[in-house]
């Protein structure tokens, strides 16, 4: 009974959590709304040459010419969820159509709306003297909402003849323009050349040659006058244990070379070594006793 109630309670808690999380999700990534977007072309004395009302996302600028001292002003009010909102980034980007370089103007917030203004002098300061066609974009970004990228159209920017700014170099870096013609060459890793090895035949021949002395010894030693195996029969059990132990020790070494590592072999060798030592001691002491008895 208690288990059943616990299960129902858990289920209710789960439902509550899921409801809360879905509500949270919709509020997490809301939309920004632009209203009252006004684009004004202002002459040198501040009077408006052209005034255009823009509605996101339709562009309004049809490549008007901005004379040398004039400025492009954009104003807009930004709301989120019905309330006035100040996003982290409000910028006006002028991107040159010829070189791809961009100049930016930061928006200023005043009495509920943002005002952005850019002119030839500001562009000159940022990227150099580059008259020509520019694409105008209103950039609005904030981590709590989807960003807005509002292309307002294109303008023809004219620079004053008296300006002494340099033309932008072909490799000017701005936030927008990342040239790829000065990339350093890729360094390819050079692997160590493997050592020169002799042909396999040579190695096999010498391996065979290395075994020849062993065969020679095994064939020669029994022919020496006086060589016998009487020692084996003198203490048969101990000699069997000792020699068997020695052979298994050597077998352990072979297994060590093929499979094990030293940390595994040393304890085994130590333990088996004790057995070999013990059996060897017994064998040798019985042999020496027999020798001393014979000498007496």
């Amino acid at each position, binding site marked *: 009974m208690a288990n059943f109630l616990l299960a129902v309670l858990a289920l209710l808690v789960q439902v509550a959590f899921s409801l809360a999380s879905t509500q949270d999700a919709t509020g997490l990534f809301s939309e920004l709304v632009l209203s009252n977007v006004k684009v004004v072309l202002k002459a040198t004395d501040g009077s408006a040459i052209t005034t255009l009302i823009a509605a996101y996302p339709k562009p309004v600028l049809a490549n008007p010419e901005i004379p040398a001292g004039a400025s492009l002003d954009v104003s807009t009010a930004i709301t989120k969820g019905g309330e006035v909102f100040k996003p982290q980034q409000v910028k006006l980007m002028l991107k040159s159509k010829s070189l791809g370089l961009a100049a930016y103007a930061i928006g200023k917030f005043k009495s509920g709306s943002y005002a952005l203004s850019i002119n030839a002098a500001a562009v000159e300061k940022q990227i150099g003297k580059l008259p020509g066609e520019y694409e105008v974009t209103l950039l609005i970004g904030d981590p709590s909402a989807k960003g807005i990228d509002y292309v307002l159209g294109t303008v023809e920017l004219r620079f004053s003849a008296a300006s002494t700014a340099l033309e932008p170099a072909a490799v000017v870096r701005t936030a927008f323009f990342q040239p790829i013609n000065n990339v350093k060459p890729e360094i390819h890793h050079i692997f160590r050349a493997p050592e020169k090895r002799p042909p396999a035949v040579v*190695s096999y021949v*010498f391996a065979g040659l290395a075994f020849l*002395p062993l065969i*020679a010894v095994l064939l*020669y030693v029994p022919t020496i006058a006086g*060589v016998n195996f009487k020692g084996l029969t003198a203490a048969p059990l101990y000699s069997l244990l000792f020699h068997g132990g020695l052979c298994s020790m050597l077998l352990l070494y072979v297994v060590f070379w093929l499979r094990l590592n030293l940390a595994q072999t040393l304890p085994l060798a130590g333990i088996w070594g004790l057995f070999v030592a013990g059996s060897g001691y017994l064998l*040798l002491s019985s*042999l020496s006793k027999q020798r001393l008895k014979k000498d007496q």
Partner: protein
Amino acid sequence: MVLSAIISAFSDEYKKSPVRVKVLDAFLIYALATAGVQFAYMMLVGTFPFNAFLAGFLSCVGFFALTVCLRMQVDPANKDFTGISPERAFADYCLANLVLHLVVWNYMG
């Protein structure tokens, strides 16, 4: 002429040495021959892999040294080692060889 006299005198005297000494001498020559073959191979093809060459060569050299020690201790004509019985010498020889060969196998890789 003198050389053949030396050789025949040496072989006559050598025949009188005990059997154990003769067996050990055979093993000494075996160790030398194996070391010689390894050295010739190394001279021919270079030292790579050096650890394998050293392991093989020094196993022969170490075995040679231990067998020489055993021969010295076992030879009844050698009066320096009367305090050590041949069985004790052989036990030492076995232990030393086991240790040498474990190290050799480990170094060979």
